[in-house]
């Protein structure tokens, strides 16, 4: 009865369906249109077109800035600093005591996306954004209390050493005058900014202007810049407000002021949906950098904001994104590996994990009531040196590295991963093998871990004859963040060091970063995250007055070697100085590096030319070589 009724209903519905299917034409299958769009995953949303303020200096913003801008140099995937000779040239023009001059020349014929020529005038904004002196003199405010240009560039060596800026008569060369030699002068160099667009916005313009108006605006900027040198402020103050705030937009459509989008990179921003995506298209007037790949080119790049990990992997599998990079968990990595038509590669970042031992109170500490450090590693006496060396010997570095690099994504992996052995160079960088062969790290990789732990126990016994495996003779308080990576490392270290008579604390601290100067901790374990390649990059960590020296480290040889790195040196001399400093750091048993963080890139196999790099903008660095 019931079944009969159901059948009848089915028959009626089927009849209805049949009658419609004849009325609607049969769909044709999708035409396999040639692919020219790449969708790149970003884990956070774009918050600004200007990544130059402290608030907006986020990876997504600077990635978009990288595709829409080109300057004198970029980092490749080694990472090496590569000169962008299409844009211009730079060189040292004078290097004597107290007078160091470098000049930057923009090639002629380069244009912004609105057709306005790029000249040296466009480099001058960099000075306003980096020099506190200029800001104060021009009445834009002291950056330490908040200036008109809310730039994140103040307070750098450029700020403290720049003496003056001058523009050549043909307006294509800018010369920077420093009060002393700057080892990293190349990357202090100015970047181009569309100053004419800023001037036009100061005038309240909301449309692209004619060539003549643009040139007049550029001339106006030069006038304003020079007026600033003489303490006149009005227009620059308005410009600072525009530079700091008007670029902070999340939605870009036909109502957006096109002057905000003027740029000189291979791509220009076309549209953006808040918290969803940003669409970039080829810049037809692009001539400021390496030529874009011409066969099967990429015509559109879309940054899509997916969260990290599994959602990104599934979006890749569903063809919703083409490019992913990040630090996924093991399950997600296996998921990525399982996708067909997707290339997966594991690489390392420049961020590296390391372990530091305290010698005394921090030179940075400002608390006058701070108790003096009185732990087992105190001072440079033989006992402290022996105990420090013993502790470092008992750190099972290979086991840690295997767990967090080789097995990070493949728990079954039995291969030994690379242990980092230098504080100044990353594995693979020029000079790394020279430095590690002689810096004393051999002590900490000679033999098996069991042998090294035995040596450690012997050293401990020298001062505490009663010490034995598991005796917990020397209590060690360790500072680390309570996340899974650090808890795992702490456990491995604690278990191994126990065999040498140490008793390592196993409680992490969420607010660990505030405690780096706290003398109640004997050991700290965290990661340094360099954002640039620089021969002086590690100085702040090991100099006796270095801002990253939280442990009272003080060694005249280290100071001498690192100060020497601040001069003009040949590559061989640099390596020699690294070796000299590293030898002392390891010899004093201050610190040991562990490993570089791994990262994973996954992208559609149709996409060619991707070479993941360790520094931001990671795999985007050679976007001009990408093609299908």
């Amino acid at each position, binding site marked *: 009865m*019931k*079944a009969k009724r*159901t*059948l009848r209903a*089915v028959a009626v*519905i*089927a009849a*209805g*369906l*049949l*009658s*419609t*299917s004849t009325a*609607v034409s*049969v*769909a*044709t*299958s*999708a035409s396999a*249109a040639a692919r020219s769009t790449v*969708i790149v995953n970003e884990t956070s*949303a774009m918050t600004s077109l200007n990544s130059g303020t*402290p*608030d*907006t200096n986020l990876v997504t913003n600077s990635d978009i800035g990288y595709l829409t801008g080109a300057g004198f140099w970029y980092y490749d995937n080694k990472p090496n600093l590569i000169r962008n000779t299409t844009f211009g040239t730079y060189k040292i023009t004078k290097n004597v005591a107290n007078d160091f001059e470098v000049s930057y020349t923009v090639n002629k014929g380069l244009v912004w996306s609105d057709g306005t020529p790029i000249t040296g005038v466009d480099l001058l904004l960099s000075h306003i954004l980096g020099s506190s002196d200029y800001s104060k003199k021009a009445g834009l405010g002291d*950056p*330490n209390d*908040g200036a008109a240009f809310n730039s994140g560039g*103040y*307070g*750098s*060596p450029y700020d403290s050493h720049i003496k003056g800026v001058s523009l050549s008569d043909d307006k294509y060369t800018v010369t920077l005058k420093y009060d002393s030699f700057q080892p990293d002068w190349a990357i202090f160099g100015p970047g181009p900014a569309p100053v004419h667009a800023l001037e036009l916005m100061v005038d309240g313009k909301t449309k692209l202007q004619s060539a003549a108006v643009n040139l007049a605006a550029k001339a106006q900027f030069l006038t304003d810049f020079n007026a600033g040198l003489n303490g006149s402020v009005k227009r620059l103050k308005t410009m600072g407000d525009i530079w700091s705030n008007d670029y*902070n937009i999340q939605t870009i459509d036909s109502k957006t002021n096109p002057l905000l989008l003027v740029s000189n990179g291979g791509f220009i921003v076309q549209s953006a949906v*808040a*918290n*969803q*995506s940003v669409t970039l298209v080829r810049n037809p007037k692009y001539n400021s950098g390496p030529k874009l790949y011409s066969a099967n080119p990429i015509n559109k790049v*879309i940054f*899509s*904001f*997916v*969260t990290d990990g*599994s*959602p990104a992997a*599934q*979006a890749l599998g*569903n*063809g*919703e994104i083409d490019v992913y990079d990040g630090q996924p968990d093991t399950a997600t990595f296996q998921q990525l590996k399982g996708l067909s038509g997707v290339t997966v590669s594991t690489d390392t970042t420049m961020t590296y994990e390391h372990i530091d031992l305290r010698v005394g109170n921090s030179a940075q500490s400002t608390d006058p009531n701070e108790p003096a450090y009185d732990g087992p590693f105190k001072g440079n006496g033989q006992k402290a040196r022996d105990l420090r060396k013993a502790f470092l010997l008992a750190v099972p570095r290979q086991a840690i590295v295997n767990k967090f690099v080789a097995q990070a994504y493949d728990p079954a992996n039995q291969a030994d991963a690379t242990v980092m052995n230098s504080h100044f160079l990353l594995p693979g960088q020029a000079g790394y093998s020279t430095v590690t062969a002689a810096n004393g790290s051999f002590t900490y990789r000679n033999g098996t871990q069991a042998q090294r732990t035995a040596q450690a126990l012997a050293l401990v016994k020298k001062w505490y004859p009663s010490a034995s495996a598991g005796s917990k003779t020397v209590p060690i308080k360790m500072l680390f963040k309570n996340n899974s990576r650090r808890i795992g490392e702490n456990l491995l270290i604690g278990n191994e060091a126990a065999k040498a008579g140490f008793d390592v604390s196993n409680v992490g601290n*969420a*607010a*660990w*970063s*505030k405690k*780096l100067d706290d003398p109640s901790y004997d050991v700290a374990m965290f990661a*340094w*995250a*360099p*954002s640039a390649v620089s021969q002086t990059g590690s100085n702040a960590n090991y100099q006796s007055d270095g*801002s990253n020296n939280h442990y009272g480290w003080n060694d005249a040889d280290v100071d001498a070697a690192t100060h020497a790195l601040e001069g003009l040196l040949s590559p061989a001399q640099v390596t020699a100085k690294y070796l000299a400093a590293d030898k002392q750091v390891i010899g004093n048993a201050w610190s040991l590096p562990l490993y570089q963080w791994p990262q994973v890139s996954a992208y559609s196999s149709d996409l060619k030319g991707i070479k993941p790099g360790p520094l931001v903008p990671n795999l985007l660095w050679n976007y001009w070589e990408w093609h299908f």
Partner: protein
Amino acid sequence: MFSYIARRIGTALLILFGSSFIVYNLEALSGDPIAELRTSAARNRDFLIAYYTRQLELDVPPPLRYFHWLQGIAGIFTGHPNFGKARDGLSVYGEIAAAIPVTVRLVLGATILAILLGITVGVITAIRQYSRLDYSMTFISFLMFSLPIFWVAVLLKQYMAIEFNNFLASGQIGIEWLLISSAVVGVIVAGLVSGDRRRVITVFSGSFIAAALMLLIVNWTNWILNPGMGVLGVGVVVGGIGVGISTIVVGFENKRVLWATLTVVAATIAAYFPVNYWWSSSDMNALNLLWPVLALVAVAVAAAFAFTRVDRGPAIRVTVITSVFAGLFLIIDRLFQTWSIYLNTDGINMRPIPTFGEANVRLSSDNFWILFEDGLLHVVLPTIALTLISFAGYVRYSRASLLEVMNMDYIRTARAKGLSERTVIVRHALRNAMIPLTTLMAFDFAGILGGAIITESVFGWHGMGTLFRNAISSQDLNLLMGVFAITSFLAVMANLVADLMYSALDPRIRVR
């Protein structure tokens, strides 16, 4: 009554003050907002640390800093609230204002769906207590209740998005799936009927064959790539729904209401072609979706008035519900017609079901129906996930509540009066059984704005849940407190509204 409300609001303010003070300080003490900077090798680190210390007032102790924040919020009484700036430089007020519509779009549909489905299933299982259906629904709802949403989301994405999109390459249902889905339909239908084994087997095989036939027709007409209902399909479906609702609410024997309902169905059929033509115009917008539905509702009210003389209330209810369904199916039919066009749009390329996001980033169409379809497809998977896990609660609550009411003396009295079982359940039992559920609903609606933290992050939606998560992970106190202020305010208000509604619905309860 008014003194009661005033008193409640007074306590609410105290609760909000205390809870926000605790949350602010706990969060401020729980970590270091500039941890990343301290380990960075930036050359101007000291400048940046000074900048953030100034910007985030890190030199002020958290309990004092809280009052700076509170001062900004207190501006709400003067009409100038200041929620402060988030760490990415955007105003907290703007971020929350942008996140609320997203969250509502994501959670509202799922909440309504969960309430409707949950109560329906709960009522059916209560009526058929201890039947096969009751046991299987109990099992399913507990199963769903205990599944973690991120895992459900991963499964949904894998099978309903990625695999389904792969399947669309052919659009033909394979023989194994045909048999499996027909068997599933058979089991469900057989579970609905009661009776001896022979009857169950007959029903199972009958519905199995019917479903299989239907799927064969689907394959044969290539319906999945080219769906549509046509005027006849819409008419049949709406007719079935109308007769069904009329049977439940007033009974099949009430012919006057039945005629009124069928009038609505006739009006729907008559409107089919004009409405479709009108909806095809290029200046189509979301508001235009509403007019035909409103017109049908007007027809429904008129028909109910025309056909009935007494007891018009239930008649109007039946016809209006039918007309709303009629409007819904006109829209669904239109979306079916758009499907094949959507599939072949550049950027969709036959992979229509997305795994994340609020809209397809490649889509460059300004056609209303394409965009509408795109928006709906993006909301489908998260809605299913949220509904699956939250409907269990409603099933259990409504089942228990109805069972309790059904055992009351007045139900026995109603039965003794000779009322039909339908009248006893729909008119006497159901209404009273729903009263306790208002509390649950009030809280669920307040919870909507809190967002669904995990769901939003798994599906890449940027709503309140994402803001909350970002605020915690980046130690963004202003943002966190902004979200907290809104959600805690709503929770406290929902509490009050639930109590007031309770007293309005249940005459035994008075607020004093």
